[in-house]
């Protein structure tokens, strides 16, 4: 065995080289939702070329709006590494509360305010319980969601709330220049969130808290407050989507919005938001909600029985989780 002597004086910088092949794999994994979306549209178009009609594409955007805003809200909570299972309860009860008050004489715009503020209030309560009392978010928000869903049932006694004034339903059913209005608030919300996540102190604090909350805390970020804000945004946007859904459907039913919970999680995860926190892009979330709506609308248009829709929804969540797991395992 020979002894080699260190003769070189030059310092070789340990630069990490991008590995060939990995670059594309990573690009694919990071944007998988868009690939799937294009693939989905392509397949739908192959089966039925009517899929690309303006009416149907518009319809997809309209259908996406409520799911999209709801998902944008919960994404904040997912990014801090928590979960909010109360959002569909918030959506349902706040819409029920606002419309009931409206049908009893409250002006429509105050009803909208009540709906959103109620969502914000529930979000604040969730946030304080989780951040300050260290309640487990999974159970706490599950309980909150059950209380609210039950609350709607108690409020309506099983009857649907209907007969909304036109001003109230305008945002969900109206149109300008022949185009539906509903996608507009949806896209505005995404635009605002894009700037919040990318450019603001709050956005940075959100991702730092999710990435490593102790490091964030030691670095002077008021982690508890950031967590409470995240839940407030989740609750507030859940309330807002409750308003949109009520306006779109023209009614608040007993099972109002209940099927959305799992779709929001699926959309967020397939869009690249990590369930362990700290990672996510709003463009990915947008892709996620569009993909889910395309598949759902596609199934309806293709005349596939609604009995299959839940099953397909479950399978989509399944794919999302597997993609997320494979990504964590192989790319990085």
């Amino acid at each position, binding site marked *: *065995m020979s002894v*080699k002597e260190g003769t070189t004086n030059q310092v070789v910088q340990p*630069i990490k080289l991008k590995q060939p092949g990995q670059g594309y794999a990573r690009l694919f994994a990071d944007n998988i939702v868009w690939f799937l979306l294009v693939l989905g549209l392509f397949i739908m178009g192959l089966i039925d070329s009517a899929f690309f009609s303006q009416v149907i594409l518009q319809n997809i955007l309209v259908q996406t709006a409520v799911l999209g805003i709801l998902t944008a809200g919960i994404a904040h909570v997912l990014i801090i590494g928590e979960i909010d299972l109360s959002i569909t309860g918030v959506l349902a009860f706040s819409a029920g509360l606002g419309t009931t008050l409206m049908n009893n004489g409250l002006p429509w715009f105050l009803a909208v305010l009540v709906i959103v503020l109620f969502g914000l209030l529930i979000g604040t309560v969730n946030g304080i319980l989780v951040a300050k009392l260290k309640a487990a978010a999974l159970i706490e928000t599950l309980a909150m969601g059950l209380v609210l869903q039950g609350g709607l049932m108690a409020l309506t006694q099983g009857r649907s709330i209907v007969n909304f004034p036109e001003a109230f339903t305008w945002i969900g059913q109206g149109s300008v220049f022949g185009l539906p209005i509903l996608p507009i608030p949806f896209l505005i919300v995404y635009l605002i969130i894009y700037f919040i996540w990318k450019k603001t*102190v709050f956005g940075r604090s959100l991702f730092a808290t999710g*990435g490593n909350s102790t490091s964030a805390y*030691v670095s002077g970020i008021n982690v508890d407050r950031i967590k409470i804000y995240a839940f407030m945004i989740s609750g507030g946007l859940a309330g807002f989507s409750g308003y949109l859904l009520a306006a779109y459907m023209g009614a608040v039913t007993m099972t109002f919005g209940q099927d959305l919970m799992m779709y929001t999680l699926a959309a967020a995860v397939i869009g690249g938001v990590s369930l362990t926190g700290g990672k996510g892009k709003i463009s990915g979330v947008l892709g996620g909600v569009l993909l889910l709506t395309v598949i759902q609308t596609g199934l309806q248009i293709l005349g596939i029985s609604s009995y299959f829709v839940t099953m397909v929804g479950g399978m989509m969540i399944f794919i999302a989780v597997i993609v997320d797991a494979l990504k964590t395992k192989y790319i990085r």
Partner: protein
Amino acid sequence: MLLEIDHVSKCYGTKTVLDGVSMNLKKGEIHALLGKNGAGKTTLVKSISGVTTDYDGTIRFEGKSIDHLTVLERQKIGIYVVPQHASVIPEFTVAENIFIGDWPRKKNGFVDWNHIYIYAKEALDKYGVSFSPRQKVKDLSLVDQRKLNIVRALFSNAKLIILDEPTTALSAEERDGLFEFVIDLAKQGTSFIFISHYIEEVLRLSDRYTVLRDGKSYTGFSRGEVDERQLSNLIVGEDVELCVRERSEVLARAPIALQCSRIKARGLTDVSFHLAKGEILGLIGFPGSGAREICRALAGLNPIESGEIRLHGKKLRNPRRPDEALAQKIVYVSYDRHAEGIVPDLPIRENISLPILKSKLASLFGFVNERKEIEIAQQYFSTLNIKAHSIYEEVGNLSGGNQQKVVISKALSTQPDVLIIDEPTVGIDVKSREEILSLINELTDTGLSVLYLTNDYNELLRVADRLLFFANGTIAREEINTGLTPEEVIQMRDSAEEEVAS
């Protein structure tokens, strides 16, 4: 030869991590493996343990090639790795941890609890460790947890145990205890590969040394053949200038920056001291003595019950959270950079800017002033010589030394008056360490005052102007650092401890 590594190479993509590495190991030998972060130590360990098997070259164990064997198969023939971070289950007892995955069973298939404790006791006695098999692991000290990991490997008939930086976060006494333990086991015939950044302890413990640098091995050195300086030159591939602080006469007349009076907090009974402008004040004490506690209290991490803090004569509001300490120009660098330092998924730039988001970088409507952010990040990136593609690389991808540089940059970006650093050089390579020390040393010329806590007294004595010895939650002794030796410091610390105890 127990283990022979014969020209092992391994590439990741176009990057060669191991380049014809050779070394060998006898039965009962303690063999040190040294090298900077990123030199290839981890990859070599993975190749030996079988986590990686697609390397070129051959590894032989007891004369037979093991290249085709998996991790589990290599464990069966006696190759074990004891990782840096204790891999024990805190809520389980010592005995349960020893038997994890291989529970003795009764005929009916239930776990045989009686025998678990009996066997465990036998094993512990055999290897000369003192703790009880019924103790919960979370109640063990760090060093006992490391010993437990080793016992667990031995219990599975390990012939070769790879210790990956086993002394990280251990005090000097605990470290000595661990070394005695390892030396005893080596005498009984177990071989060890010992990975460490501390050359001093490597020289004390190991029989032979192998240095890895840029994937190449420099092997075959026996005890006594090389000294500390030669080894450290071999590790970095160039002469490392050790940072030595010039103690200036001015310091004695410098104005007082930080004045703490009668601080009472968790783990602190009554602490009063002052810190002059531009001074580096070394803090010394056993865990729980109050040295770390005063750092964390001043940083707003432990609540202060009573007492007064003054900075430049002005009374401060006692910080209740880190952001309140930061706002008052006191910044803390934690001893645990993984838990309390970095956010691995964020780029270097966003890590450095975390503590100044709400102050320096805040612009209208809560937006971040990105131009200034990039400027500041770029500045520290080059000053501290952080090795990465750019400030946009995620911190999680960097080596330990560079991660620590990011943490230091983050603290300095706040332009503090008082910098509190707690074990800033644990687990990082010599060159990074000296770069960090020199920068801190330079900054004191511009008026930065530093509280410096470390168990590495060699390092501390090179930079500290004055020393405070903590015991029992208070300051037991104060010394000006006039060329003290580490041995003298250890003696002072122990006698201070005894005085307070009696």
